């Protein structure tokens, strides 16, 4: 991911040297005050996290309970978002959807992040033919557009929640491997690393205790920026029928249901709005973070 934005619209506090007395909370708050979009993003994320955690107590109906006499009803006082082709309450299903999409997106990013960090760190630190081979491998993976490769893998493994996550991890790790490798290469030549080698520290210890901790912060920032995208691709896989099984309240799959009932717009409209707001929230936050970043870092991400 190259620099998508170079300039912040307002002077931001994160890039500038932060006074030592300032607490993390105060820094975050002044960052959000200076970036209204990020503030909207954070609010939306908190909203969806709370809704997902408390969904069982919020929903008026069970998200999987079918009621054929009530099928295809437009939004009403009883069914705020209407009912679908099996008489299930769309509002309840939308509220439950976040319980799948958010953890799925996070799982993909965390697992791919760990795999990518290990591979990238080894490649960058060991170098030579080892680095060369690993980087050629990542290039091959990156040559496939994300959704195509994920689709092929998910289809081959068989449609399920776990397989969809697994497929996305296979597609996602090379991005992190490349970023972490670049970071390791730049940290490797810094004075404190050479000092550590000079006093006789073992190579493996230098890598895990000295080099890697200095690469983690930017990698974590990249992961945050990526989260929205991961949720979007996950919804796409479910939409294609390659995610959790049919009755599961999952946003992408609910939209797929809506295609066959085109005139009942509410079946697809509300779950889509849910995906849209979640992804938008993460993109708003990610954009502000990218803007606030140190320009040198921005080039790496």
């Amino acid at each position: 991911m190259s620099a998508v934005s170079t300039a912040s619209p307002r002077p931001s506090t994160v890039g500038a040297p932060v006074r030592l007395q300032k607490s993390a909370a105060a820094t975050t708050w002044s960052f959000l005050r200076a970036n209204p979009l990020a503030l909207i993003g954070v609010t939306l994320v908190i909203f969806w996290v709370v809704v997902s955690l408390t969904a069982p107590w919020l929903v008026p109906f069970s998200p999987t309970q079918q009621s054929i006499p009530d099928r295809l009803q437009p939004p009403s006082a009883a069914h705020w978002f209407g009912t679908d082709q099996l008489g299930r309450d769309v509002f309840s299903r939308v509220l439950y959807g976040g319980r799948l999409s958010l953890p799925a997106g996070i799982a993909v990013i965390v697992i791919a992040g760990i795999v990518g960090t290990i591979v990238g760190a080894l490649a960058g630190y060991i170098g030579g033919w080892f680095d060369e081979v690993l980087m050629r491998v990542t290039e091959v993976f990156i040559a496939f557009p994300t959704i195509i490769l994920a689709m092929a893998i998910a289809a081959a493994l068989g449609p399920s929640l776990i397989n969809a996550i697994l497929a996305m991890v296979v597609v996602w790790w090379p991005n992190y491997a490349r970023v972490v490798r670049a970071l390791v290469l730049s940290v490797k030549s810094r004075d404190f690393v050479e000092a550590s080698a000079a006093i006789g520290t073992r190579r493996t210890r230098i890598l895990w205790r000295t080099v890697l901790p200095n690469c983690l912060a930017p990698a974590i920032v990249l992961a945050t920026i990526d989260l929205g995208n991961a949720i979007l691709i996950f919804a796409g896989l479910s939409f294609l029928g390659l995610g959790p099984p049919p009755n599961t309240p999952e946003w992408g799959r609910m939209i797929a249901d809506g295609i066959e009932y085109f005139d009942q717009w509410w079946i697809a409209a509300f779950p889509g709005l849910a995906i849209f707001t979640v992804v938008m929230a993460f993109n708003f936050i990610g954009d502000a973070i990218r803007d606030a970043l140190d320009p040198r870092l921005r080039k790496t991400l």
Partner: protein
Amino acid sequence: MPVYQYILRRLVLTIPLLIGITLIAFVISHAVPADPVTANLGQKAMSDPEIVAAFRAEWGLDDPLAVQYGRYLGNLVQGDMGRSIKTRRAVLEDLRAYLPATIELATAAILFGVTVGLIFGVLSALKRNSWLDHIVRVISLLGVSVPVFWLALLALYIFYAWLGVAAGPGRLDVGMTPPPHATGLYTVDALLAGQWNVFFNALWHLALPALVLGSFTTGVITRVTRSAMLDVLSQEYMRTAHAKGLAPRVVITQHALRNALIPIVTVIGFSYGNLLAGTVLTESIFAWPGIGQYAYRASTSLDFPAIMGVSLLIAIIFIAVNLVADVLYFSLDPRLRAQA
């Protein structure tokens, strides 16, 4: 280094990439738990060991994986991508039939994305921190956040079913005969045949899917253009250009945009590949008969040769487009030529 030498070197570097891609496509479809036999034979046929054995023998599923891969590669070099288990036709033949519709759609989408993205991006950079910049920023962020399959449904609902201003699903109105086949792109074929009514109808049908598909790309290109322009505008030669009395329009188009185009070209190449992938999510909604629909049907029936064919085709187009972008980049930037 002259450009032809650069192209040659890049082409050689592409070979291991292509082998890697076929290997991945092959491993995915052969070394995983999913069994093409269960996917393609009914319950009844599955209980008959003779039918199962015949099926396995017919598709060579009993040979060692290395042999199967070798055979696959050998066939591939001769342009044989195998036979689709579902349609029972050669995969290459299927792809040839479906590809033009996708190329037409993806090209229209990239044209839209590049035009709008460049204009928005340049204006945004020139009027930095104005209300226009902020609005463009929000719109482009919304563009990269919206699920394209949902936007497709919503657009059809609003512009086709409700307002009635857009064409319905499909490439032409029902009952209209496609133009005589030349390229497979209906708009181009209709123009070649001089059938104006068909041309406008095809264009009308193309507009909404292309707009929807291009929404993500528009957002990306806008952001990249803005940031590339801001980078260039802060350079000292911009001040020089202004100081020597050039008209602002000349400074912007000749000095700023030309240099900013270099990173933008790379992103456009990258975006085109993603557009081809994005068609998988939109074509089913617009009943657009392209490789996206073909790929989806292939995936759900575990039609391995077809899945491999589509993945390979998209990956190869993706590599080719990026190669072209890199060559353009190389010829646009004299610094690179001097370095190499």
